[in-house]
């Protein structure tokens, strides 16, 4: 706080220098009226599905006009907007860890759960109901096979320990790049599972053990991917036969007829938060929208348009079995999956670093070794 005050004073001191700037005093984006909502999300098929399943029905029901803003936001961008009182967006879709980081920094409005239907909340996954963010869908990171190299009838790795075993299952592999220090795409949990840690005993993670395990797989990884587009490329161009992939990416290739199969064992589940930046011009509308995304019928509609799993289990009542089997929270898959503990990533240690920052630091040193 202190810092931001001093920054403002600093700006005032120099403002005479930039008085020239007043010459172009162009109006800011028009202040939104009470019937508006500016909503951030990713573009592409994903954005289209969000629009069709959530936004259009919301507009029809409430009369609130929604402006979609298709862009992937970094934590720093949201932080900058809030810090500088220039919030131009009402609700933002961010990853679990980004959401928790922003929440910890005091950049977010509390989610008003009194607007939510208690019956819907009851059946919603606990971690998705954070005081500062709400998750309306989940997805997973899975081991994915190229079925030409690893057909179902032949032996193939079924868990991360076997994925790590390059003598028994030779072939190029691909894992997520850990430089962001986050669970997506960082392969931290997978490294521990490969080393024999049980799925329910992952957190708090032993970072030394993570990197000792990563040491073993390092020579066998052809590509450490960073973006979803890279996963597609790695799988389509046959860069690797065993790939750690986000389920949605693999499903899009399977639907396209590519020889890809998803292994649901030891799947890493995570989700995105809808958050409201502090100072959002239409915070109430954003609250209403977020409550709307908790509804089972909307989540069911979304899952059928884009294979992301509902956070509200009741949604499965309205999803055909064929589609449901594609989704990460399908009851049968849940038994063999684990949910990322985002809170662990943002926990701050005695040195003032979060676990996420610590992972990044270790990673940066590890890659050049």
């Amino acid at each position, binding site marked *: 706080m202190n810092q931001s005050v001093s920054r403002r004073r600093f700006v005032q001191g120099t403002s005479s220098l930039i008085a020239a700037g007043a010459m172009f005093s162009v109006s800011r984006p028009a202040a939104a009226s009470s019937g508006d909502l500016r909503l951030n999300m990713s573009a592409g098929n994903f*954005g289209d599905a969000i629009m069709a399943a959530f936004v259009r029905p919301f507009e029809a029901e409430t009369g609130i006009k929604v402006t979609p803003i298709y862009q992937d936001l970094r934590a720093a961008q949201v932080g900058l907007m809030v810090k500088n009182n220039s919030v131009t967006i009402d609700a933002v879709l961010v990853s679990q860890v980004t959401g928790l980081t922003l929440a910890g920094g005091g950049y977010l409005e509390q989610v008003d759960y009194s607007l939510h239907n208690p019956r819907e909340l009851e059946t919603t996954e606990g971690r998705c109901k954070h005081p500062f963010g709400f998750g309306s869908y989940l997805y997973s990171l899975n081991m994915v096979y190229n079925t030409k190299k690893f057909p179902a009838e032949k032996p193939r790795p079924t868990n991360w320990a076997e994925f790590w075993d390059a003598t028994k299952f030779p072939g190029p592999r691909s894992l997520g790049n850990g430089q962001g220090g986050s669970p997506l795409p960082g392969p931290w949990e997978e490294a521990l599972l490969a080393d024999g840690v049980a799925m329910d005993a992952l957190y708090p993670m032993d970072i030394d053990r993570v990197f000792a395990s990563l040491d073993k797989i390092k020579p066998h990884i052809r590509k450490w991917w960073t973006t979803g587009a890279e996963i*597609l490329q790695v799988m389509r161009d046959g860069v690797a036969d065993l790939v750690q992939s986000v389920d949605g990416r693999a499903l899009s290739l399977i639907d396209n007829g590519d020889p890809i199969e998803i292994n649901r064992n030891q799947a890493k589940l995570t989700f995105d938060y809808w958050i409201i930046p502090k100072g959002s011009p239409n915070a109430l509308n954003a609250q209403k929208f977020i409550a709307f995304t908790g509804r089972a019928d909307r989540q069911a509609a979304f899952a059928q348009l884009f294979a992301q799993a509902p956070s509200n289990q009741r949604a499965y009542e309205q999803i055909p079995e064929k589609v449901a089997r594609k989704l990460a929270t399908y009851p049968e898959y849940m038994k063999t999956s684990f949910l990322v503990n985002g809170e662990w990533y943002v926990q701050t240690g005695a040195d003032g670093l979060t676990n996420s920052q610590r992972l990044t630091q270790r990673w940066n040193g590890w890659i050049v070794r």
Partner: protein
Amino acid sequence: MNELRKIWRVPLGLTIPAFAILLVVFGVPAIQLFLISTNAPSFSITNYHAFFEQPGNILILLQTIKVSVVTTFICLIIGYPTAYLIVNASKTASAALIVLVFIPWLTSGLVRTYAWTVILGDRGLINNVLIGIGIISTPLSLLYNRLAVYIGMVHIVLPIMILPLVSVMYGIDKSLVAAARSMGARPVLAFWRVFFPLSLPAVRSGTLLVFVVCLGFYITPQALGGLSDAMLSNFIAAQLTNSLDFGPIAAEAFILLLIAIIMLSLFGLDLSGTQSQPDSVRKSEYGWASALRTLRRQVGEFVVPLRARRWPKQLYQPVHSGRSWNTLAAIFVILVMMFLLFPGLIVIVMSFSAGAFLEFPPSGFSLKWYRSFFGDSSWTGAFWNSLQIGVMVTVLSTVTGTLAAFGLTRTSSRIRRVLMLIILTPITFPTIVVGVACYLGLVNLGLIGTKIGVVLAHSIGAIAYVVVIVAATLSNFDQRLEQAAKSMRAGPIRTFVRVTLPLIRPGIIGGAVFAFISSFDEVVVTSLVSGFSLRTLPLKMLENMNQQIDPTIAAVGALLVLMPVLWIVALYLTLWRSRRAHEAGLPLAGLADRAEVPSSAAGQRQ
């Protein structure tokens, strides 16, 4: 008029517009960032200390420098001869070649990087061809290693090397080379002793630009490189995704800036000093080897009679070795152009794909991705936004940048060094940090999300390009021509318009092209300052790219290739025509006519 004359006399006055923009949009917030990096108001070096405490960081820092140096070196080796051959080609050929050099710059960097993965991949073009011919049986690992990083980076920055070289080489008086030849210098010697020293300012500015741009790279190394091929900017970009702790991030950015400063002072930042201090340049160029040179000169004395006898023979056989040299040069240029254009061709082919993914070879032919571009107002709207912003940036930065370059070449070298460094910061800083700084700057002005805001944010980088390129051109500019004009009672404006401007036009055009392209392709800064209310073409491409690799992006790339071809051709045609008309009425026409002198030196022409 009087005011203007005063400003003209105080050269630093000319730099005011450029520095005003820089200060307001970037300078003030950059200082804010620096304060944050020192944890102001407690002012400690904890963040810097923490950075150097990690051995990995130091290794990555060294690696960043090494990759940048090697890339710059490769660019120089390829770029210098290419520029030389472009300048010495026939007028139409050289205009065409310049356009070809620039075409790759207009295809989005993201798409081009993707094209390289298609070419170099395990099942990529090269491997398929080699396996098909039977040279190899298992695919070569061409992708995800350092080599691929160099290929991708050189591809992106090579035009940045070539452009300053071309614009300076156009200004070199080729009659000087011809004079050297007439006095018996062999082509190589005439080149080495006359042409090369005159082109040195461009070598310096090109090297500098390329190096500085390379320091901030991160998308290409990440996409084409292996795990360990990370650059410092990768770290910075990754941290901004999940962290709100600006202190360490700002510290890393300033460390990168410091590296740039150190490297620049090592390699000589003085981009534009030849005219005012020819001696010092000569000294630095030849001083260390003076003893060797004396020896060589003495040995040379013996050879002189021999050479003198051979000379008349050579004189009457002007194309003695010309043919084989020409063939070699043509092959070289064709290879360079293939390297520059091949990824773009791949993109164009992929744009006609019938499938839902960007793929090569495409699974079928279809125009649906073009329809998806023209049929979607969000694509065409983004295109118009980018075009408008690009034009405004070009005008603003070319005018202010040219003025600044003028002012800088006329100040003392010490001041010039410092000011040049400041003007270069926006392209030295990692783009993402520039974006954060611009964001803070535009918040101060209340311009977030406005077109003017985006124009200002783009202009600071564009001005840097313009200044470097124009300053390089100016360094070969003979100020006595201006004095001569003034002695004949031409006012400063008249002198500028009639004498100076025609002579440095290639540099200004080059700077303008760069300014436009750098704005048209900008995505990182824009994403921060657009305030989510203004969408440019690269932003629109990026948003699609993150979710799915949609061939619409390839279609846009293909369309963008057409646009510059038309634009640059039109520009060159009109400018050349007006230049001719100008020179006819110019008292100093003979001097301004430098580019017209055929180069017999390298035997380029029959």
